[in-house]
């Protein structure tokens, strides 16, 4: 198993989701968003979460990040309880940094200052040291020339790359990505994928990545976890035993196609259910 191999080589960042249930209660109408969901993610694993829109994937991410509480069950990070029934809301910390769907760089800070923000507010580095480290990391990601520009001055691809650098500078155990490349065209997307993989190969941080895009899931992931439509549960897990480093030539290979098909069958079934249940959006 790829995950078992990995836990021997990687350091920290194992997430354990155990029997997690989330019930939303708007106006007294209980909505079961996540139902008894369990998933073990190894340290340093790239875990892709795939499922129809509104299925509750983001609810899981929010529970790990500490934005939303859970109702039952528990989530652990490296064996330590983040949240459980007694303490349903996890504390928010820089060990689990989130990259958002629509981009959340601070428009009033240059890319360099955006990246320097984490170490500065945590007080781990002085202002000058944080700026220096930020410039260095941006340069590593090929963004050295635009470090002094504001997010409004650069392309969305550059902004998104800078946002991932802003997350990584905190040296997190887990990177939580919520459909970060959703609105991008296929060409930009493939460039973003290679950049992300390149950063992953350098850091080996655990990645929890929510997506609709099956090719993205197989290309990037060690595993693609297909979720059921609401309530959210694990439906199937597609293991991607394709060696790293990977590049875009993989996209046209036979083994890649087979895995995408395998995931597609599972997702299609759920998408159909979601459609029949009257969901507005589909995978």
């Amino acid at each position, binding site marked *: 198993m790829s995950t078992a191999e990995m836990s021997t080589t990687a350091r920290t960042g194992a997430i354990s989701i155990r029997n997690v249930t989330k019930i939303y209660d708007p106006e007294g109408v209980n909505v079961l968003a996540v139902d008894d969901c369990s998933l073990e993610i190894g340290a340093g694993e790239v875990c892709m979460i795939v499922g129809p829109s509104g299925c509750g994937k983001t609810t899981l991410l929010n529970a790990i990040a500490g934005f939303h509480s859970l109702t039952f069950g528990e989530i652990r990070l490296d064996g330590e309880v983040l949240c459980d029934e007694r303490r349903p809301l996890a504390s928010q910390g*820089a060990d689990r940094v989130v990259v958002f769907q629509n981009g959340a760089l601070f428009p009033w800070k240059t890319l360099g200052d955006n990246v320097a923000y984490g170490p500065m507010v945590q007080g781990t580095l002085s202002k000058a040291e944080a700026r220096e480290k930020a410039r260095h990391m941006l340069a590593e990601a090929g963004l050295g020339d635009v470090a002094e520009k504001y997010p*409004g001055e650069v392309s969305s691809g550059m902004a998104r790359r800078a946002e991932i650098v802003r997350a990584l500078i905190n040296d997190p155990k887990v990177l939580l990505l919520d459909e970060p490349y959703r609105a991008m065209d296929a060409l930009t997307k493939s460039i973003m994928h290679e950049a992300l993989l390149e950063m992953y190969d350098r850091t080996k941080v655990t990645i929890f990545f929510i997506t609709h895009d099956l090719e993205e899931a197989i290309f990037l992931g060690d595993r693609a976890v297909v979720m059921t439509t609401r309530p959210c549960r694990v439906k199937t897990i597609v293991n991607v035993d394709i060696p790293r480093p990977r590049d875009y030539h993989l996209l046209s290979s036979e083994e890649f196609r087979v895995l995408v098909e395998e995931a597609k069958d599972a997702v299609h079934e759920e998408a159909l259910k979601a459609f029949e249940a009257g969901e507005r959006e589909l995978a």
Partner: protein
Amino acid sequence: MTAVSDMVQGAGVVRKRTRLQRLKDNRKLWRGIAAVVIALVFWEVGSRWDQWFGFTLPFIGLIPPPTDVAVAWMSVLPQPGYWESWYLSFKRVLAGFLVAQLVGIPLGLALAVNRYFREFFFPVFEILRPIPPLAWVPASLIFWPTNEMSIAFVTFLGAFFTIVINVLGGARTIDISLLRAAQSMGATQWDMFWKIVLPGTLPSIFTGAAVGMGITWEVVLAAEMISGGGTQGGGGLGFFIWNSYMGGSLPHIVVGMISIGIAGYVSSSAIRWLGDWAMPWRRLF
């Protein structure tokens, strides 16, 4: 000579142009000047020859032509009373405006970030807000000991409500992803207020300031007309107009009106300039 032909002649090297050349090439400036000149010519022609095909031109035929206004203006320019009017009006506008900013921005932010505070104070605020500033004039003339203080109070009210509602709206519409991103990077509530909420609200603060400045001028002028001359609380451009009206001098009324237009333009330019300075990331658009 345009910038492009300069570049061609310099074989790809942009030659440094003199200040005069740049002034000559500033099309925006020349268009603005042309617009003002054309408007003046229309006005002059319209009020000099007010009979067209047997009809009297409405309105424009009744106001004095710009040349008469210019003559009247020349006569008041050396008078210290005229500049005293400018000074008094500006002082009142700035005082009311600055106090409204000082009270309004913190109040708007407090209403935005604290739910309990908002739920408790917002209803009262919303009942007071629709009352026009001028409706406060009689009450404040009674409550405040001097006319000057009544004017200051009413001026303050004019800008205050607009500022608060803008700041509140701006702070409440900050993208929650920005707050969550900051939180997930370890920012404290304090950091988030100063580094996210405040810069995120700046555009709305400047919108509120621009609108508030306009209202402040309106209110000051009206209050000056109502309070009249006299030893205390008198003067100002509003009183200048009122006084010209009482004296029956139409050109001087127009002089007062145009003076207010210029004063308003200077004020809003200052706010725009400050906004550009405070929000460098917005200059890109």
